[in-house]
């Protein structure tokens, strides 16, 4: 892509009569400020959710009850899931979107700058609601992040707080997605056709449509739980003529696309990083766009593979099994394209590339265990075991989180104007990949041996693998602090980063100075 970089000439770094101090951040409408806030918020939530994970792993270190009572244990698994999905991973990628989409398409800001501010500032109240629900009588929601009734109809006020938090988070995501779609559709620089956009923008365009389509479904589902709890309805109460399985259908109609809402932007980040460090254009750009769209469309028609055990006709089981397996095809296209991009490239292995390759290996492994679980006959055996826990952590952690780290290391020089500490970055990667596998690989064996998930105590034969997994979890948790050190060091100083610190990187974001000035592309660049 060749650009006449009008944007760099028109970039400036003075913020016009902008408040300073805390009010700068409260009132900011700048996409870079808001992107930074999203990223810091998500990291803070990652730590909070991570601490909950460590409570879970501490309890599971050995059989018996040691650290928390069973009810608190269930609250931990629930809040860990909700916080990681809605508070950590989703906002992290919205942070990337805020920072990078306007820079990548040559827009001066997001389409709705004030709504962007509001989208972000809805998050902290929701996070406070979720976290403080631990303190109310009866404690937090303790149903698992899926919030299945009839349990959720019976719980205390912590459940109402979780429902309210989910509503707020949903509104925030929908507003953020409307902003992203509008920005991408209407504000691309002249000459930047859709098929010339960086793949990260494509993945976010598709993701934003998914969010707009399925978040209201979740909002509807939790609203129905709320009315069952307080307004005398019986949507999910069998005693009143309702059906708890209905909730599972509704939840997973949201829940499966949600998996891709998390994974697709991760694909986008990796699709930026791998070409840069292979010094080759992305292999099969158009097929990547079509594969991503296919994954998004298929994600709507496979939801009941999460609920094979509820008692479904064989025809239904077969349909959902084969539909689920179909997803492997576009996903395979993507994986092969990433590998083909690296093929005969001038590869170097800086931290972003390491995390991307880690993603490639481990996400593919998570995909394979997903294929195993897609088979009804197998899933009936493995449902609600640690095999499932292992599978989705390979997708969520090694998939989404590793890709988020790849993106963070890749764009840190653009954000801060400094190069990060490469040695510490690599240390972070190697510690993460070793401890990640130590934590989650053994959980496959636990699941295959029959250990159920969401229980604080277990039979003696599961003790060794649980011990290994818990040690791995603490190692993984502590290694994430290395990233905090790297990020803070990079913000405070370090070697100056040039406008394009990675020689293989392509795109408009590398035509503006590092750190990116407060205002960029006020005159749109022209793409040839």
């Amino acid at each position: 892509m060749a650009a006449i970089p009008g944007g760099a000439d028109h970039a400036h770094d003075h913020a016009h009569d902008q408040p300073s101090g805390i009010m700068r951040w409260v009132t900011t409408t700048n996409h870079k400020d808001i992107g930074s806030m999203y990223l810091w918020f998500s990291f803070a939530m990652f730590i909070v959710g991570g601490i909950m994970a460590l409570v879970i792993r501490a309890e599971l270190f050995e059989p018996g009850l040691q650290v928390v009572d069973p009810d608190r244990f269930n609250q931990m698994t629930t809040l860990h899931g909700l916080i990681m999905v809605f508070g950590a991973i989703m906002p992290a990628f919205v942070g990337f979107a805020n920072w990078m989409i306007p820079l990548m398409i040559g827009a001066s800001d997001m389409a709705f700058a004030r709504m962007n501010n509001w989208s972000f500032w809805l998050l902290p109240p929701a996070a406070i609601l979720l976290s403080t629900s631990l303190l109310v009588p009866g404690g937090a929601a303790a149903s698992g992040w899926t919030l299945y009734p009839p349990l959720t109809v019976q719980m205390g006020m912590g459940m109402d707080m979780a429902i309210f938090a989910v509503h707020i988070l949903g509104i925030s995501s929908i507003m953020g997605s409307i902003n992203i779609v509008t920005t991408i559709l209407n504000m691309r620089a002249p000459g930047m056709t859709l098929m010339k956009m960086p793949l990260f923008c494509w993945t976010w365009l598709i993701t934003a449509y998914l969010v707009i389509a399925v978040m209201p479904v979740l909002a509807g589902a939790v609203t129905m739980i709320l009315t069952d709890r307080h307004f005398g309805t019986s949507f999910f109460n069998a005693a009143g003529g309702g059906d708890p399985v209905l909730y599972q259908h509704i939840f997973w109609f949201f829940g499966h696309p949600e998996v891709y809402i998390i994974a697709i932007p991760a694909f986008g980040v990796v699709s930026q990083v791998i070409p840069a460090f292979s010094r080759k254009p992305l292999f099969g750009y158009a097929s990547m766009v079509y594969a991503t769209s296919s994954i998004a469309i298929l994600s709507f028609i496979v939801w009941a593979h999460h609920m094979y055990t509820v008692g479904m006709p064989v025809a239904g089981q077969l349909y959902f099994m084969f539909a689920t397996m179909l997803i492997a095809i576009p996903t395979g296209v993507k994986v092969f394209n990433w590998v083909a991009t690296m093929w005969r490239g001038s590869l170097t292995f800086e931290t972003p590339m390491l995390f991307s390759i880690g993603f490639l290996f481990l996400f593919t492994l998570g995909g394979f265990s997903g294929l195993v679980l897609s088979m009804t006959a197998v899933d009936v055996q493995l449902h609600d075991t640690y095999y499932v826990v292992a599978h989705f952590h390979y997708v969520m952690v090694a998939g989404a989180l590793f890709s988020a780290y790849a993106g963070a290391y890749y764009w840190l020089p653009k954000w801060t104007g400094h190069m990060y500490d490469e040695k510490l970055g690599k240390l972070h990667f190697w510690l993460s990949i070793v401890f990640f596998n130590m934590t989650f690989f053994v959980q496959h064996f636990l699941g295959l041996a029959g250990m159920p998930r969401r229980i604080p105590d277990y039979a003696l034969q599961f003790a060794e693998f649980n011990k290994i997994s818990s040690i791995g979890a603490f190692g993984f948790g502590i290694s994430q602090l290395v990233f905090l050190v790297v990020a803070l060091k990079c913000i405070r100083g370090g070697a100056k980063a040039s406008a394009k610190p990675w020689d293989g990187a392509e795109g408009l974001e590398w035509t503006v100075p590092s750190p990116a000035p407060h205002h960029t592309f006020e005159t749109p660049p022209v793409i040839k």
Partner: protein
Amino acid sequence: MNSRVTVMDDDLRRRNVRTALWLAAAAVSVFVMFLLRYGMSGQ
């Protein structure tokens, strides 16, 4: 709120608002369809 939002011409602003309204209408209609579908199912 910060008084300075990046300058945008009126045509683009209108186009953005139109796009956003379509998207918001889509989201709201999914939610309303839900309430109608299940709200009217004899609950």
